[in-house]
């Protein structure tokens, strides 16, 4: 595709609900990243995939967060039993994975947990 696509754009969840956020990276991009951006802060790294392999998940804040990329393309970030502190913008980014650090970001999913 022309750019990184994320859906939904906005998600409102009740505390305790499970949510799933989708990311469609740029076609052919090997590397895929998830970042979390709280209001007024810079993005914070969550996890990284190279093709279908999750090579780094050191930024996931708790075991309620789970990410997958089963076919090496589309990725899903799942948050179980959402809490208010999970409210943030979740950004997905992709890159060619050749050591080129230029990340191309999507427009994010804004998650509000009530």
């Amino acid at each position, binding site marked *: 595709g022309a750019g990184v696509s994320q859906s939904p754009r906005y998600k409102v969840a009740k505390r305790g609900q499970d949510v799933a956020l989708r990311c469609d990276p740029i076609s052919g991009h090997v590397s895929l990243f998830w970042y979390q951006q709280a209001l007024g802060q810079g993005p914070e790294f969550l996890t990284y995939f190279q093709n279908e392999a999750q090579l780094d998940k050191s930024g996931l804040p708790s075991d309620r967060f789970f990410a997958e990329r089963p076919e090496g393309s589309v990725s899903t970030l799942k948050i179980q039993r959402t809490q208010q502190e999970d409210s943030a913008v979740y950004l997905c980014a992709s890159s060619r994975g050749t050591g080129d650090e*230029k990340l191309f970001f999507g427009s994010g999913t804004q998650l509000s947990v009530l």
Partner: protein
Amino acid sequence: EDKVVQSPLSLVVHEGDTVTLNCSYEVTNFRSLLWYKQEKKAPTFLFMLTSSGIEKKSGRLSSILDKKELSSILNITATQTGDSAIYLCAVEAGGTSYGKLTFGQGTILTVHP
């Protein structure tokens, strides 16, 4: 733990002014420093600075890396209202996954007509 601090946190100027945004960092085994512009939600890439490329320029924007002072500046000359955005600075450490960035808090730039 890697750390990036940006200043000022916000800046209000008028069209035509020149601005300088600051970024200082602490990182184990520095690999690169990047600048992004964030309008609405999606950050867009501006510059990447490394030990072999410490100065970059594109149109009215330019950036310099000072490895001795562990800092970088982003200059915007002849500002326009379209420059209004959040400017994010990030660093990447060697020995980590490419693309695993540590971001600063950002500088909110507002350009008035």
